[in-house]
């Protein structure tokens, strides 16, 4: 079977601490996978290794069948795997449109043009289109520092998506967003990514959000994959309930 992303016996140690232990994951094209786990479970470490930010201590990472171990984040991005961040990584002193235009120029060529203007009609139309898709066109000319947190998260994802990646990794796309806005934000994101036919892997703490959008869940605990499968079977797994979701469910029961 052709997997878009495959990790084999992946390990990551920070001194005596193991952030990833024998992580074996295979993701097929078109899948929407949710990654769950408590803080320190190794979710972000997994994303950081897959996107080249961290080098694994051992193991193999294949993207479209090619090893990407030792490749830089930019090389992996250019190969077709883009990411967004837990804290939106934007250019705060620039306008939303300029953020998108820079992302587009970055995606077009690894060597940016020295004299041709950043702002040209084609790029502006493309940036407007993607801002429209994410329903944030009204923020186009605002400085990033002036836009709300939810919109920043969408800009972050839009910047990752503008280069037409094959796979998108979203690190906690709803973190810092109010409970009321979460569903709306994720509805928007998932509609856009499905339109672009992108394989998605996203890290999320809110189980309602995970259950609503994914076809498969990876549950991490202490650097290991505790469970991997369809949402209901993973969420009903006794060990997942005990070690990953138990706290959240108990909290929800208490609130109810």
């Amino acid at each position, binding site marked *: 079977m052709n997997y878009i992303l495959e990790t084999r016996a992946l390990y990551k140690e920070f001194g005596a601490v193991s952030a990833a232990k024998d992580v074996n994951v295979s993701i097929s094209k078109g899948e929407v996978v949710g990654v769950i786990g408590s803080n320190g479970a190794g979710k972000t470490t997994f994303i950081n290794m897959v*996107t080249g930010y961290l080098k694994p201590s051992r193991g193999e990472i294949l993207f479209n069948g090619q090893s990407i171990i030792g490749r*830089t*984040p*930019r090389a992996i*991005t*250019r190969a077709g795997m*883009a*990411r967004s961040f837990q804290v939106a*990584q*934007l*250019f*705060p*002193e*620039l306008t939303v449109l*300029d953020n998108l*235009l*820079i*992302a587009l*120029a*970055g*995606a*077009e*060529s*690894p*060597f*940016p*043009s*020295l*004299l*041709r*203007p*950043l*702002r040209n009609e084609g790029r502006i139309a493309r940036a407007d289109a993607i801002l429209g898709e994410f329903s944030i066109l009204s923020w186009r000319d605002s400085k990033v520092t002036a836009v709300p947190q939810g919109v920043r998260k969408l800009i972050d994802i839009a*910047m*990752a998506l503008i*280069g037409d990646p094959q796979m998108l990794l979203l690190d906690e796309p709803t973190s810092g967003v109010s409970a009321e806005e979460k569903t709306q934000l994720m509805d928007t994101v998932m509609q856009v990514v499905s339109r672009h036919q992108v394989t998605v892997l996203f890290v999320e703490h809110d189980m309602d959000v995970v259950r609503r959008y994914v076809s498969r869940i990876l549950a991490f605990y202490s650097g290991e994959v505790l469970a991997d499968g369809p949402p209901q079977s993973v969420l009903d797994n006794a060990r997942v309930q005990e070690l990953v979701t138990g706290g959240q469910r108990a909290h929800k029961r208490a609130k109810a």
Partner: protein
Amino acid sequence: MRLDKTELMMLGVAVVLATSGLVAPQWLVFLLTMALAKSLVVQGVVMQMRAGLVTFGQGLYFCIGGYAVGMSGHFLTISDLPTLLLIGVASAVALAMILGLLMTRYREIFFAMLSLAFSMILYGMLVKSPGLGSTDGFNVIAWTLFGWSPASGQAPLALFVIIIAVSAVLAVLLHRYGHSSAGAMCEAIRENEVRVEYLGQSPRWVLYMNYVAAAGVSALGGGFMALAAGHIDPEMAYWITSGEFVFIALLGGTSHVAAPILAAILFAVVRTYAIELVPHSWQMILGVTLLAIIVFLPKGLWSLLSGQARRAKAVEAKA
């Protein structure tokens, strides 16, 4: 090549300035020539500031440009102005291509201190080189232009017109560079280098390219300075000289390509009059000026003009 409004305005100002040289006293022509030569070096400082890097060692390339011009005349008897300037720029670019490999690994104070260190190494080498006049430096031979040798009275005015023309063309190119994908990428690196990497770009490559280009531009200023003053000495690489370029960059701001030119001219005028009025404490006047700029105009003098333009636009929009 179609020129936008800003570019046309800059070329217009250049024509007016060059024409004014015909009626201006010789001391003013010389003062403006020196100021314009410095503004070219400051353009190099500003290019790096836009990418979030402050250099305290741009005097290195200023000095390389000056010495390359002086030595080519002295040892190779080359007197053709464009050839001399090209040699200056090529020497600086060649050195920057080597040093840039190291410099672009560093950021913030480490970059600033390393740039300072390299300029001081050159200063030390020149001071210890009797063949190049040690601390006294040496005189630069008179220049020619494609075989034409200006009379001694004509040379300053001719050089004034040439430096205005070169500064104007360079300002147009730098204006385009600032608005290009590469220029925008420099700003993006200043704002968030991690994101730039995840856009598929190499921040180091962008900074390297910018560093080498800035060195070339600054060397051009050094070359002109050598030709205008007719003399070069190791002070060109001294840290105080580099500090002066940073001073001028802060004075003008980084938001417009014309800001370093305006600031360099203002700096020359303030310094000239400060020396005239208080010969023993003129540095204090410059210090107070810089302090006032930092406190009241943190984005430099240019923010006064851009602020006015914004207000005018807002009034127009309301109407």
